[in-house]
């Protein structure tokens, strides 16, 4: 292990890590928004929109992120939409993550027995109040484990961004191997940096899961 090499290229990895986290976080925020909207549409069984969401979810969950990115980055310019690699990465992550988030929120919503909604309505609550005070708080707590798993999954998926020339962690490692042939050092730094990013997320996630477990009703 050549420690001088590691010290010299540490800043490069730091920049790459910041890019990875930045794109990851923005992408995940959009994924959550898309997921919430889709889950709500499915839960309320809104006609037409519901079918569109179903098609979207199947399309997005059954194609690899790499293929989606290739389509967005190399395909869309042929149709006249030339987007920067960063924007493509975020769109790709939101497109993929949206469906996973939607599924986790939907399964959370479905665990809440209909009797709770009916009870709330019979107590004189409006539909919105029942959603806001009774169903959503429980549904959110039920979907936390799946949600945390999705966040970690999406952060790891950012490693395919290298295919659209984004200098993320994966690309930096591959590039350094190609330039200086220091395979062990480059891969070592790669693993360390992914751990630095993902371990806190995973630890925070399990803490959150443990706290949220108290929020369920009758379980």
């Amino acid at each position, binding site marked *: 292990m050549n420690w001088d090499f590691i010290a010299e290229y540490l800043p490069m990895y730091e920049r790459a890590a910041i890019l990875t986290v930045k794109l990851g976080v923005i992408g995940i925020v959009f994924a959550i928004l898309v997921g919430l909207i889709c889950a709500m549409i499915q839960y309320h069984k809104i006609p037409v929109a519901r079918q569109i969401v179903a098609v979207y979810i199947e399309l997005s969950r059954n194609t690899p992120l790499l293929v989606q990115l290739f389509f967005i*980055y*190399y395909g869309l*310019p*042929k149709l006249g939409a*030339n987007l920067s690699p960063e924007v493509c990465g975020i769109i790709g992550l939101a497109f993929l993550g949206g469906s996973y988030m939607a599924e986790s929120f939907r399964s959370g919503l479905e665990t809440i027995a209909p009797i709770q909604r009916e009870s709330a309505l019979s107590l004189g609550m409006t539909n919105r109040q029942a959603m806001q005070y009774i169903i959503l708080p429980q549904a959110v707590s039920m979907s936390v484990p799946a949600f945390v798993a999705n966040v970690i999954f999406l952060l790891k998926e950012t490693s395919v961004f*290298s*295919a*659209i*020339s984004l*200098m993320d962690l994966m*690309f930096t490692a*591959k*590039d350094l*191997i*190609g*330039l*200086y*042939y220091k*395979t062990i050092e480059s891969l070592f730094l790669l693993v360390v940096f992914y751990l630095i990013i993902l371990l806190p997320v995973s630890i925070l996630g399990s803490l959150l899961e443990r706290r949220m477990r108290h929020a369920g009703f009758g379980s």
Partner: protein
Amino acid sequence: MKNLKKFLALSLAVVLTAGVTACGSSSDNGSQKSGKEVYRTLDEIKEDGTINIGVFSDKNPFGYVDENGDYQGYDVYFAERLAKDMGVKVNYVSTEAANRIEYLQTGKVDVILANFTVTEERAEEVDFADPYMNVSLGVVSKEDNEITTLDDWNKDDSVIVISGTTAETYLTKNYPDIPLQKFDSYATAKEAFENGTSVAWANDNTEVLAFALQNADKGYVVGIPELGSSDSIAPAVTKGNDTLRDWINEEIKTLGEEQFFHADYEATLADTYGLDYEDSLVVEGGKKSE
């Protein structure tokens, strides 16, 4: 629950044992041939009957896959002959620029014939045989925004390079201020360049020339045909695999007598370059004419 735990513990034990034995047996194999070399000697390849050759799959006309799914090109033409004279079958392994050295160091291929430019840095990691082609760097750009020099670079513009190529190393070293847009394969770099991602694409001059000629109708031009020093392209083997390298050198020398690489050029490259570049590109018998 208890049963489940027992089952899990048992399966873990089985997996671990299997893993350890597997590792053990593979290192046994290694020790039989003095030390822990990853490469296969000439005799081992002949005995096995198949040679693994790393080539490009997306670098027309040097190494590419044609519409029938067969490997074709200048490098492949040579690879076919190499295997034929060795009396073995070829197994082509598709490589990308950045992992050519890795493939040799991990023994995934026996020879790299992927338009591999000889450089001092690379020679420390792998062993090169004698050269079979000349090359230098070139820069291709759009006709209406032709790039003829890399000096006084406008920092808003980027240059496309492929990760792990000599173009990347050269620009990183000599023009650190030029923003590089890096791709990991020829196919993606080409696609991005055609989409107008960057103003220029730096690569082996053979490759950018081929690109400009193949896309002449779209208005590409090689504004810088020669950048940096003139280099050679040679087969590479894993460091220390002398039996194989010596055999390849001998083969290249023999092939020189029949002007094999001229025939190779005419069969694979003439369609793209015409015959004008034949004598400047081809190296015959492993000896460069100065």
